[in-house]
């Protein structure tokens, strides 16, 4: 087996319990919502679909737990002795958590897509009024892109912060919980603080023609969040490479 695949499979198995709980919970929400929507109406239970989209903080916690578990379970000696770069060790953990994120996203967005298509059909057939804001401009298929960009960028940002926090904890013997909170709060503050300048820079890139439709207007913001997530991840990988000790 390829070393990367072996590590990835190991990480997937390592988070299988939490992964199963999150996936089953999402699937249950999807089933309930689709069942209620079978009559073609709008139901309060549809609001449940927002819950799976709120799981990125849980995924960041899961990533941090997966890293700290190597030390808690005393497996850090075997793990760090493997003949792969240390960044690979962390990236495979991140890949496993991202796989879970993709599974949740696909399941939930499938339900959202089905319901939205049903609503669009109803509106087009004239048995329901368009939204108060005017005609519905979003195609059902575009929901995948819109929710994917939002969920993906938030997930990447929080996973990056989680990776940075988990790596910085290697440098301290005490106050590790406090450090984690500080990294998340500081990281989010920094993200907010840098937002105007970075977003402006992204907008000025002529090589990226942005369609100013309802959907794509938000994409530079999502791209910014993703870039910040990658930046935090790179910082975390660097610190881990230098300071992780068995």
């Amino acid at each position: 087996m390829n070393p990367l695949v072996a590590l990835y499979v190991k990480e997937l198995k390592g988070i299988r319990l939490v992964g199963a709980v999150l996936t089953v919970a999402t699937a249950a929400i999807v089933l309930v919502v689709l069942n209620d929507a079978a009559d073609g109406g709008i139901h309060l239970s549809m609001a449940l679909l927002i819950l799976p989209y709120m799981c990125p903080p849980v995924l960041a916690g899961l990533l941090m737990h997966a890293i700290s578990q190597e030390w808690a379970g005393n497996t850090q000696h075997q793990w760090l002795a493997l003949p792969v770069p240390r960044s690979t060790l962390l990236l495979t953990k991140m890949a496993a958590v991202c796989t879970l994120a993709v599974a949740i996203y696909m399941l939930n967005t499938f339900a959202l897509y089905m319901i939205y298509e049903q609503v669009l059909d109803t509106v087009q057939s004239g048995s329901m009024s368009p939204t108060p804001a005017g005609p519905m401009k979003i195609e059902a298929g575009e929901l995948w892109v819109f929710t994917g960009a939002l969920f993906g960028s938030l997930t990447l940002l929080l996973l990056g912060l989680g990776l940075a926090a988990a790596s910085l904890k290697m440098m301290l013997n005490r106050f590790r919980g406090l450090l984690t909170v500080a990294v998340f709060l500081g990281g989010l503050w920094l993200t907010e603080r840098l937002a105007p300048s970075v977003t402006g820079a992204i907008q000025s890139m002529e090589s990226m023609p942005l369609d100013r439709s309802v959907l794509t207007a938000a994409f530079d913001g999502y791209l910014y969040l993703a870039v910040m997530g990658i930046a935090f991840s790179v910082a975390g990988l660097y610190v881990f490479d230098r300071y992780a000790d068995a």
Partner: protein
Amino acid sequence: MRIEVDNLWKRYRRKVALRGLSLCFEPGRVTGVLGENGSGKSTLFRIVAGVTGASEGTVRIDGNDVGVRTRGETAYLPETDSFYSWMSVGEQLEFLSAFYTGWDAVKARELLDFMRLTPGDRIDELSQGQRARLKIVAAFAWPSRLVVMDEPFNGIDPPSRRRILEALVREYRVDTQTILISTHMVYEVEGLVEDVVYLRDGQVAIEGRADDLRAEKGGSLSDIFEEIVL
């Protein structure tokens, strides 16, 4: 593999584990790294295995800095159990086999039989001694160029220790393998080590060929060790 250690320091927050250690392990030989608890043996081994960084100084293995390349040629048995408790014995070995060139599944099976382990056993159900045996299987199932064994027999019942150690060094060892064994129970490795390094307080107290030391000091390695400790 030739291992050159030069002015090696390892400082923890409230403790200095290694104090300017300089020594050389010759290739293809079995070296016993002996010393009391806290003498710096495990720290030295962790740095050689690449799982811990040095505070100062260098370790070069065949002229290379410790890194991905040297880790790919080193079988490291840490002092503590380092297996994933949710895996089975077979899964753990299969996982490791993905990383080490020349992993020999047949030899792994033979070693499992020799150590009285079965692939289906779950690691969290193994006794401490069985886990220690599994560490040895994982280290000798592939032709690593360097084997670093840190207190490898902790947990194994005394009557089995000598049998296992002799079998490893005499039957399962690849000829060119350099083996480093650390222990504070010197009598266990008395007849097997060719070279000896005694560490005390993170420094070399005595080093040399085992036979030369015995002739020079007029006693066994255990006697010399006791003399140093006292």
